[in-house]
């Protein structure tokens, strides 16, 4: 799904992540797996981001100063441009973390991306409905991060409120957009949203906003 990416094609990848030429994007990565933290950190650094990686939702809230007033957010935390969090974590799930972030006046505008090794439609829906920008099925690849970067760099102030297409991954390793995979959309989609009433509300909302079928990556 390249709609936003195509609009934003900026040439060299070095440009991605540098919004005004002088500041790097600062990403907060949350994952209880040390292996995954190391990988996501490298993916983000290669994409010219500054990274703060923490191991739990609780630590993330502490960093953001959202842990019930025990500590205020530091200057760095206030500059966070993006939060990428794993879904399944002991203690607080990524979904619960997402809700807390969206419930905060300071951080509710910060895009949150959920990562999960499990490709569960209800889970994806729930996260998107709660305000997640995107849901990435693990393992996370460089192309996933680049796509998110494109969105964050362009999205600030412009694309807010539009839900990004998340990806589902087939067992065989294919990557494609959710709507075209599960719904076999006909070309005349735009005036047929009532045909898909059994789909989840978030999908129907998504479909009625985008009459053009996204093409396969």
């Amino acid at each position, binding site marked *: 799904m390249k709609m936003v990416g195509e609009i934003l094609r900026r040439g060299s990848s070095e440009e991605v992540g540098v919004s005004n030429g002088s500041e790097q994007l600062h990403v907060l990565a949350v994952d209880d*797996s*040390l*292996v*995954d933290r*190391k*990988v996501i950190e*490298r*993916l983000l650094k*290669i994409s010219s981001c500054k990274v703060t990686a923490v191991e739990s939702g609780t630590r993330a809230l502490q960093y953001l100063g959202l842990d019930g007033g025990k500590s205020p957010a530091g200057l760095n935390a206030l500059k966070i441009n993006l939060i990428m969090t794993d879904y*399944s974590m*002991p203690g607080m799930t990524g979904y619960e973390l997402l809700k807390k972030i969206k419930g905060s006046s300071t951080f509710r505008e910060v895009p949150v991306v959920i990562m999960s*090794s499990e490709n569960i439609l209800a889970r994806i829906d729930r996260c998107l409905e709660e305000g997640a920008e995107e849901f990435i099925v*693990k*393992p*996370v*690849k*460089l192309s996933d991060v680049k796509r998110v970067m494109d969105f964050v760099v362009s999205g600030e102030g412009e694309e807010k409120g539009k839900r990004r297409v998340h990806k589902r991954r087939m067992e065989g*390793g294919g990557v494609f957009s959710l709507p075209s995979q599960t719904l076999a959309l006909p070309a005349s989609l735009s005036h047929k949203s009532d045909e898909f009433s059994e789909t989840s509300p978030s999908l129907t909302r998504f479909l009625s906003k985008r009459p053009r079928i996204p093409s396969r990556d």
Partner: protein
Amino acid sequence: MDVLSHLHRQIADFTASLHREGFLDEQFTQLQKLRDESTPDFVNEVVSLFFEDCEKLVTNMARALESQTVDFKQVDSSVHQLKGSSSSIGATKIKNICIAFRTYCEAKNREGCVRCLQEVDHERVLLKNKLQTLFRLEQQFVTAGGSIPALQ
């Protein structure tokens, strides 16, 4: 053929065989692409973390499966973690065993779980040896004057 070309060929062939035999998948290749001159040990480091994690999880699972009343939820949680990290480094065989392992946990089938655990440990040892060989070859390549970008 000079030493560098020879080593380069060896590395390419060996890596190809690891993919062909199902030890590694595309995700491993993805990780290799994240290396550059300033981070030549990135893959080695991630792999080390993986094996440390794997050994710890296997020990936990073994202990859990030995007890009188097996806490299958706990075992499943460990399998889930292992599945995640093996997927993140491209360790296909281990990841696939974990998928089967989880169904045995759900069925509360101790024997099935124990079999899976044995398979996981077996594959862990095999993969560790294979990757050590790969890293050794890469180290020789670098020592002989080869550069990391040439390996990508």
